[in-house]
């Protein structure tokens, strides 16, 4: 910032001039945060979500068969940390610990996690669902199954803690995908409307003609490369997909370079309006009218190897409509505001106006859609694993634990605790969403 030249008064009496303190910064986000903080329930929900995230991150330290720190045969180990290193390929297990039964080793001293079990550990002494209230065959109270065990003797508490990780990651991954699609389509529809996007006939025709060969060369001829990569591993598939997509983009960009040739013809030089809003709104309508659960059932019927990534993908691919609608509605309002007109008058390009000036102001309602979307993604995931659809059978999630209660009707603890976890998580996200709705509502600012 350029400094103003000092006035003679300031030069003469530098200490005496009162520099007025800056006015209290009531920026938009500060106002929102203040409004949000008034809603005590929403604040507590947010705190609870932070705890959930911590639990998800630290699940290995909270419930694990491996000790956090131990001294074994004269050496000090930290098996939980060591496992991360081994998984990353940085370290290896010493031979005597390679296939160790961690709970049966004789340690010199040991610090164990709060729950000394992994969700998949079978406690053969406490099989067939032992109630948390009844007598358990355990060495000491340290080994007690606080929330009981399931049919195979797996600890419910450990499953709950590790299930947090799955529930949250499904929510986050699928909603990131939904956010990406929703922002893109919503901003296109809202900012350009039905009349905003005008391109010359030449470009329209050229692009319509180009899409097919671009698709053909980037995806069609690479079909087997993608197919084999998918059979190989998910990450290599993503890499190949990225390559295909960039090939597609390069092809289109290269083709668009030739647009000047077509523009020689006066007929093709004329501009046409593209009804972006109409097209995208119809698309949203189609997506909304497909019953998500049935769609997921159909897709998982054709997927031979169930995987959490596929569940995340489908939830993300179907869950963007809420975000897109919010962004669209906001941008429809914003694009008529004066500052956008000013930006246009300054000669900025449409794309820059959208990304730099319009979109940042449309983001706040997205938060609401995101909170509700996370809640419904977590609910959908638990519903799917409850039905045993799409989620691998060996993965222990809140939903799959709840479904075990159906097989053993006497095991009330299997129904109560995982279900309560689902309920609590979904409710807190909903409450945060409600709190955000109120905080962002201009009518609430009195």
């Amino acid at each position, binding site marked *: 910032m350029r400094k103003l030249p000092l006035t003679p008064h300031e030069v003469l009496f530098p200490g005496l001039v009162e520099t007025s303190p800056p006015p209290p910064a009531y920026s938009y986000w500060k106002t929102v945060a203040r409004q949000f903080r008034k809603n005590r329930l929403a604040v507590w929900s947010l705190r609870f979500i932070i705890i959930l995230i911590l639990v998800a991150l630290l699940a290995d330290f909270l419930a694990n068969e491996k000790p956090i720190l131990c001294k074994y045969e004269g050496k000090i180990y930290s098996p939980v940390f060591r496992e991360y290193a081994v998984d990353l390929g940085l370290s290896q297990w010493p031979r005597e610990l390679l296939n160790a039964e961690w709970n049966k080793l004789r340690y010199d001293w040991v610090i164990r996690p709060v729950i000394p079990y992994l969700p998949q550990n079978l406690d053969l002494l406490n099989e067939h669902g032992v109630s948390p209230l009844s007598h358990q065959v355990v060495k000491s109270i340290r080994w007690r199954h606080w929330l009981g065990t399931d049919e195979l003797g797996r600890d419910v508490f450990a499953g709950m803690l590790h299930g947090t990780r799955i529930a949250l990651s499904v929510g986050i991954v699928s909603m990131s995908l939904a956010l990406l699609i929703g922002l893109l389509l919503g901003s296109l529809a809202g900012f350009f409307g039905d009349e905003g996007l005008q391109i010359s006939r030449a470009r329209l025709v050229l692009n319509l003609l180009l899409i097919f060969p671009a698709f*053909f060369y980037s995806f069609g001829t690479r079909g087997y490369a993608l197919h084999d990569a998918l059979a190989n591993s998910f990450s290599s598939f993503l890499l190949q997909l990225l390559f295909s997509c960039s090939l597609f983009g390069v092809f289109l960009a290269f083709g668009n370079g030739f647009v000047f040739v077509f523009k020689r013809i006066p007929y093709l030089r004329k501009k046409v309006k593209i009804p972006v809003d109409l097209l995208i709104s119809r698309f949203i309508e189609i997506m909304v009218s497909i019953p998500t659960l049935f769609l997921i059932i159909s897709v998982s019927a054709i997927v031979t190897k169930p995987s959490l990534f596929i569940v995340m993908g489908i939830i993300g691919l179907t869950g963007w409509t809420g975000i897109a609608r919010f962004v669209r509605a906001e941008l429809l309002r914003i694009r008529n505001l004066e500052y956008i007109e000013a930006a246009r008058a300054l000669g900025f390009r449409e794309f820059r106006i959208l990304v730099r000036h319009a979109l940042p102001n449309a983001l706040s309602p997205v938060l609401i859609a995101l909170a509700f979307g996370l809640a419904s993604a977590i609910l959908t995931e638990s519903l799917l694993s409850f039905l045993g659809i799409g989620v691998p059978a060996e993965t222990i999630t809140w939903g799959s634990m709840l479904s075990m209660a159906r097989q053993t*009707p006497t095991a009330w603890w299997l129904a109560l605790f995982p279900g309560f976890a689902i309920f609590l998580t979904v409710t807190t996200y909903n409450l945060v969403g409600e709190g955000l709705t109120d905080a962002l509502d201009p009518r609430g600012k009195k």
Partner: protein
Amino acid sequence: MLRYILKRVFIFIPTMLAISLITFFISVNAPGDPLDQILNKNAVGDGQAEDKLSSEKTYREARHTYGFDLPLFYFTLSNAAYPDTLYKIPDEVHRNTLERLSWKYGDWKEVSAWYRQIRLMEFTLLHISRTPANSSSLNDAQNAVYQLYNQFDDSKIRFFLSTLSVIKQDDCKIRGEAERSVVSLEGAYHSMLLHADPEKKYIPSIHWYGTSNQYHRWFSRFICGDFGISYQDQRPVSSSILDALPWTAGISLLSVLLAYLISIPVGVRAAVNKGKLSEKIGTTTLFVLYSLPNFWIATMLVIFLCGGDWLHVFPGPGAAPIPDDASWIYKIVHIAYRLILPLICWTYGSLAFISRQMRGGMLSIVRQDYIRTARAKGLDEHTVIWKHAFRNSLLPVITLFSEVFPLAVSGSVVLEHIFNIPGMGQLSYEALFSKNYPVIFSVLLITAFLTLSGNLVADIGYAIVDPRISFSKKKK
């Protein structure tokens, strides 16, 4: 007005088409061969040449009756290396291998010649009479041939060819007839390699098939109400759906009705009594109800009220079926008794949702000036609330129908599963696990259709009641 309705109906058609396309392409990519399930085909490979030929014939006939020998869609966009008649190959695995081979070598003539040679080899081996002496080498040779059908990798093809050429060199009992076939098989392979034209796959090609294709057949029949044949019991899908639909539709409609009947007065009460303790408790309860996952509540109800270690008040999902010869009063009473728990689970969510909306709508109406005017006129509170405010706040709640109805329909999967009700949800759930695709995709399409129609009806109803909606669109 009419224009708005027509516009909405007009949009309905492409949406329905898009959904049908999505459904169709999911179903086409479904793994496994549907005909295997229909024909109960056993593993091929054993048996004599005649058996194999006759089983292939029945397979081809079944393929024709079910229309699987038609091209998939009106046109294909592929490359010049692919033959446009690939869809005629009956076996799915063979089809995929052939597709891949022609993609790799670019010469359909050579590829099909290679495939014909494999087939010849297979039949030559089948014609050789088995003796204890040649049995094991014959088995090896047959296995190699079956493997060759699925291979597109050069090194693997070479490996299995070398396994076969053992016949030539070895002093085994099956030389003679087989030897010539092996030589021509190798010849076909080398000719395929020689004439390879791998660049051909970079030339795009479009092929038009016209209306005799699987999608056209499937969708035109679907519109006429013929949903295909269930793979599992060979019944028409429409009859299974007709059996299941009354359950789902009945419970859903009943629950939506109940939800509206209860939630409207509850919502109005909550708005009128705003700020009182009873209202606060009620509103919190509604919120909790709204966010309770219904499958959790259903499971809990079953565990705590239907036997188990706790109460046994209601018959559980595994209760004995009602005998057919029972009197109708007995039947009705028992069905109603069994439906209490499912209905609760079906209803409470939408009940809470509608109540909350009703309360919100009513609250914003009560603040309006005309309500103050009505009070100022000296009208009694009852008239003000129920005659002036209520009518105007009812409007948005009615349109919630388009959101509540599909919820009630799709909520059926898990609740019907828990309570063992033979409705649409249970039907598609079972179809999923038995890979009975016609049922799954019919249910998907019907549900989408119902959802769309619900939206359409709600939109039109809204436009009729509130003319501002269609006008505002016109102005824009």
